[in-house]
């Protein structure tokens, strides 16, 4: 029953069929070309330009001085530390608030879940700037939160809730929460009820069934959401700029300073490149630790 491993070249219609397959491949390539062009224009060219700028020194020639400065100056180190610190805390608080919320949503009947999901999505669709300034109004010394807390006797004198780390975190957690809840909710919805039912059938009470079965199965979704939040936080500008009151300097704000105050495009570009590199490094490490296809929305 052995058959030759090669396909005969001279079978009936072989040449025609081969040409047909080639034409089909070309047609598919043609369909993809607008997307390829778009990616080139909005992604590859700007990033390449950014990288090029970062290598231009103040004198106008090629130089590594923009990178060297980052290594030498303690201020830059502090800015990166702040950026990671704030991103880490924001992600952590988002997990603590978002996990129970996503779990609650995933256990609701479909109609109620849609309604509750709207309350998550509605702020998500509102302008970032509007929400940030709303927090500024709420959190300031004579703001709603302080006056109510004092009226209720929670504290006696106004607490500094804004223009510092507190304000930055409150605002960022609020903005970032949907980015955690949405993928986590989707992951939880995909966990078949049969798993927890099977656990119950085998003798697990509700708490045991949750920790032994549901929680581990929801972890890929949690990692996906946390990763998205963390990476977005690294480059976040508006909210820390407005609510941090200049006391919380993140990389994005230093980039703005470099351009608006010092007109130093090279330094700003170098910061951008380093931030991009760190982000890619984190994504790479995450893809090693977990399966990135779950994070990037790949199918099963």
């Amino acid at each position, binding site marked *: 029953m052995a058959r030759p491993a090669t396909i005969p070249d001279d079978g009936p219609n072989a040449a025609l069929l081969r040409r047909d397959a080639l034409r089909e491949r070309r047609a598919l390539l043609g369909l993809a070309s607008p997307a390829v062009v778009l990616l080139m224009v909005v992604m590859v060219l700007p990033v390449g330009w950014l990288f090029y700028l970062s290598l231009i020194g103040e004198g106008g020639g090629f130089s590594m001085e923009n990178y060297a400065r980052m290594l030498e100056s303690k201020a830059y180190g502090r800015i990166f530390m702040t950026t990671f610190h704030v991103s880490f805390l924001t992600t952590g608080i988002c997990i603590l608030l978002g996990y129970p919320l996503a779990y609650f949503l995933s256990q609701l009947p479909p109609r109620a879940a849609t309604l509750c999901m709207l309350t998550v999505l509605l702020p998500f669709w509102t302008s970032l700037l509007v929400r940030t300034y709303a927090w500024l109004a709420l959190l300031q010394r004579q703001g709603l939160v302080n006056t109510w807390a004092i009226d209720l006797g929670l504290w006696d004198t106004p607490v500094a809730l804004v223009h510092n780390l507190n304000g930055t975190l409150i605002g960022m957690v609020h903005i970032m929460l949907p980015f955690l809840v949405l993928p986590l909710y989707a992951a939880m919805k995909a966990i078949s009820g*049969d*798993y927890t*039912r*099977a656990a*119950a059938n085998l*003798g697990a*009470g509700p708490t045991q069934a949750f920790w*032994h*079965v549901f929680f*581990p199965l929801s972890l890929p979704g949690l990692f996906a959401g946390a990763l998205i939040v963390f990476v977005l936080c690294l480059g976040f500008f508006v909210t820390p700029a407005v609510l941090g009151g200049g006391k919380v300097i993140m990389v994005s704000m230093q980039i703005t300073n470099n351009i608006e105050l010092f007109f130093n495009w090279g330094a700003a570009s170098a910061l951008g490149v380093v931030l991009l590199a760190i982000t890619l490094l984190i994504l790479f490490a995450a893809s090693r630790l977990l399966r990135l296809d779950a994070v990037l929305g790949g199918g099963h």
Partner: protein
Amino acid sequence: MPGTDALPITITAITKRYGEVFALDGIDLAIRSGEFMTLLGPSGSGKTTLLMALAGFTRPDSGSIRFGDREIVLTPPHQRDVGMVFQNYALFPHMTVAGNVGYPLKLRKVARAEIATRVEQALETVQLGGYGARRVDQLSGGQKQRVALARAIVFGPRILLMDEPLSALDKKLREHMQIELRHLHEKLGMTTVYVTHDQREALTMSDRIAVINHGRLMQLDTPRVIYDRPANRFVADFVGESTFLPVDRSGESVSFAGRQLRVGAPPASAGALLLMIRPERLAVIEGKMPEGLNLFEGRVRELVYQGDTALAAVALADGTEVAVRSGTRSGTAFDRLAVGAAVVLGLHPDDTVLIPYEG
């Protein structure tokens, strides 16, 4: 597993309503200790709801379920101590095979060394000895099925529930597993409640079959009685193939097309009747007319060859059509049939079954 003695299940007047629809409409069912009971019905008949009520995942509106003497209708699922095999196995994907099978033992605080022994024992019972370290996604469908079974029996439950456990397997493997499950049941002896919509599977495996439709028990009996003497048109239609012919009745005497019928058992009910004919119980008669059979004359309208059997559609004199099924052995009277030819069909009185004519 050693030391399991089975428990009888007593279901009384169990009712569950979803909106206007009764999923369970007052079902009474006594399942004997050690019995293999199949709940058979079409989708939406309530058979799965009943199984879920036994497992504790569906809370009925009213009624009683007892395992032995213990009323369990209010007992939460994790305290019911019944094994269950889910339709899609529901094996935990983040645990190994041994992790899955050992999970119920871990919950029961069994010592670690004993867990290992009992897991291996259970895996050997389902012929998967040595598979403990495998990941669940490395298993084939049939192997997953066996692991699910091992997990359901490893803690020695006295009742085993199965929800269409073979429906995801291909036909050959399914038929193989049917026999294997049957053997396993004989070996372990636990009371087994098995849900399926596959009538052939039900006939193959069960001690008794409960045919369910619209949340009601249509018939409860052995496979043989269910097939040979269905109590009503639904059971006759759902289990096996059949042709229904309206018959004339005057008292105990019943006739079709002016010819009196010999029947094995007199009709159970008063009122109009239908003659139910299983296609494989009809014989093609050649030459001398034999004594004692009910005879039907007709003409072959169509022949369908299906490999192991063949089907003939025969139009009777009054225009009604009956199906005849036969093995495809060469040289038989059936083998000589041709489309358009006249044919005489014989039916044994014991195979001449009368069922009530319903609307």
